[in-house]
């Protein structure tokens, strides 16, 4: 057992970074991520944590600094959100293609516009195909644990792929709960020293890295990267297992609650998952056969594991915290792929909720379950997402 502290998601991330013995941090503050970098710089300043902190002038520079530093063979971290993550976009692909095991916390906040400070997943979803592992933590404890696990997975020679650890802005980043912080000795049983697998930069032996790649080899490099990303699934399972044996907290790529024998299952990600679990318990007590399958690793996507969880389920309700404008939300599309590739014949319904900081509370989830029940009874098919928490009379259009 570590030390139980009252920490919010941001402080938990900072403690996870310190316990992971990260050697270099470069970041630019942005709401709601700012307390992460404030906490880290203050831990370094007060000599509780020995690391280098680089003050940069933008998020683009923050990640570029890490690409340089990680290439020399040191463990690195940054954090961002929303506009900041958008400004990093150009270099997130470079970090991944350079096979650098950088870890970044993304504190999800809506991408403008309209201008917003508050939570949804439109920021991290812009990074969906940039080649980063994406973990969605649902609580401050998971935020800390996932940072530690992320380094072990990213640095594994079978993977060599950077990781984003996502927490929901405010609903996790500013939510204070008891967090079990491993002691230095306990953490050291799990976190090892960083030993770079690939060649590292050395001023004595200069060479260029990540330069112009001809069509003769580009495809093969992308496929190599894809194999690394796909291998992360197995490595995540191994590390979740090892983490549980040391710390007693068991995670999985898909975390299920009451899916066994359920007629209707909600699939979701992030901080709403606990609220769904709570509502599932209440509905189960009222005799409803419902459950929740929470996706914790969006990339690589756990198709087989989710298919196993949804086997025999009649109705699947997917809640995306992003609009999927003109199409469907990204999680819904992954669930469709899962059902198809797993040969599962279930009704599947797309819900959109919690945009720009709108809270997803018990009633939102109760609505999802009752709408799903009604849709299944009617036999209707959804050709566009259901905006479950919409104020209809505030919507303006000239269609």
């Amino acid at each position, binding site marked *: 057992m570590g030390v139980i502290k009252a920490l919010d998601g941001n402080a938990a991330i900072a403690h996870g970074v310190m316990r992971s013995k990260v050697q270099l941090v470069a970041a630019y503050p942005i709401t709601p991520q700012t307390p992460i970098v404030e906490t880290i710089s203050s831990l370094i300043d007060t000599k509780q944590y020995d690391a280098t902190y680089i003050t940069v002038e933008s998020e683009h520079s923050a990640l570029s600094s890490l690409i340089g530093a990680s290439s020399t063979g040191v463990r690195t971290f940054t954090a961002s959100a929303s506009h900041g993550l958008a400004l990093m976009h150009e270099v997130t692909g470079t970090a991944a293609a350079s096979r650098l095991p950088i870890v970044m916390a993304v504190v999800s906040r809506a991408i403008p516009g309209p201008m917003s400070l508050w939570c949804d997943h439109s920021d991290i979803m812009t990074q969906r195909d940039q080649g980063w592992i994406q973990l969605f933590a649902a*609580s401050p404890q998971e935020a800390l644990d996932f940072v530690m696990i992320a380094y072990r997975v990213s640095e594994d020679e079978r993977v060599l792929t950077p990781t984003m650890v996502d927490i929901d802005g405010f609903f996790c980043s*500013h939510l*204070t709960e008891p967090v079990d912080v491993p002691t230095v000795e306990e953490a050291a049983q799990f976190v090892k020293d960083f030993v770079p697998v690939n060649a590292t930069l050395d001023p004595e032996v200069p060479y260029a890295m990540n330069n112009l790649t001809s069509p003769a080899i580009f495809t093969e490099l992308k496929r190599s990267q894809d194999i690394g990303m796909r291998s992360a699934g197995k490595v995540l399972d191994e590390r979740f297992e090892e983490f549980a044996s040391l710390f007693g907290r068991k995670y999985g790529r898909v975390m299920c609650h009451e899916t066994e024998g359920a007629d209707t299952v909600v699939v979701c990600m992030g901080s709403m998952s606990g609220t769904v679990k709570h509502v599932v*318990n209440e509905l189960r007590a009222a005799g409803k056969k419902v459950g929740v399958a929470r996706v914790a690793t969006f990339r690589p996507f756990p198709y087989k594991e989710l298919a196993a969880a949804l086997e025999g389920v009649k109705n699947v309700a997917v809640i995306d915290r992003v609009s999927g404008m003109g199409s469907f939300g990204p999680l819904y599309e992954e669930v469709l792929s899962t059902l198809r590739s797993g040969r599962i014949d279930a009704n599947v319904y797309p819900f959109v909720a919690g945009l720009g900081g709108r809270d997803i509370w018990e009633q939102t989830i109760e609505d999802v379950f009752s709408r799903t029940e009604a849709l299944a009874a009617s036999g209707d098919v959804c050709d566009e997402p259901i905006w479950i928490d919409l104020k209809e009379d505030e919507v303006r259009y000239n269609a």
Partner: protein
Amino acid sequence: MWEFKFYSRGGQGAVTAAKILINAAIIEGKYGQAIPSYGQERKGAPVYTYARIADGPIDVKSYVYRPNCVVCFDTSLAELGIDITEGVKSGSTLIVNTDDADYKNEAFEKVCVIDADKITHELLGEVPPNVAMLGALAKATGCVGIESLKQAVMSKIPGKAGEKNAETCAAAYENA
């Protein structure tokens, strides 16, 4: 499970109070959760903060819409049309900061009146009334003990200032 909604204005220290409260619960081996709702912060603007205390892990990660305990730092919020009885469960408790000893509110089963501004002013000076409100909250609900609450206050505010804040908290506990 205790589910709290704090009504206050920017600068009254309710966000910090909720964190101290759940730290006291954690000291007692309970589970706690504090979640502020952030807007464009400015002094004097209405601020809502939420907290939960339970014996086991708390799954829900949303604001509190059906509180069984309301903590009102400022009765003048009613002038802005803010209704502190919104969503309250039957049998709820209200802790209210007011100098009106005859304050009544029939939406609550139990009303705990505390002049937290006066107690704070006398013992600490011109600072937020938040630790005094916590003392009254502990007395009215018994959700945490005064000793763990004082410990949580002192861990948030170190040194001599922390001790004086803990004394203020205890004085409110006695007077509530």
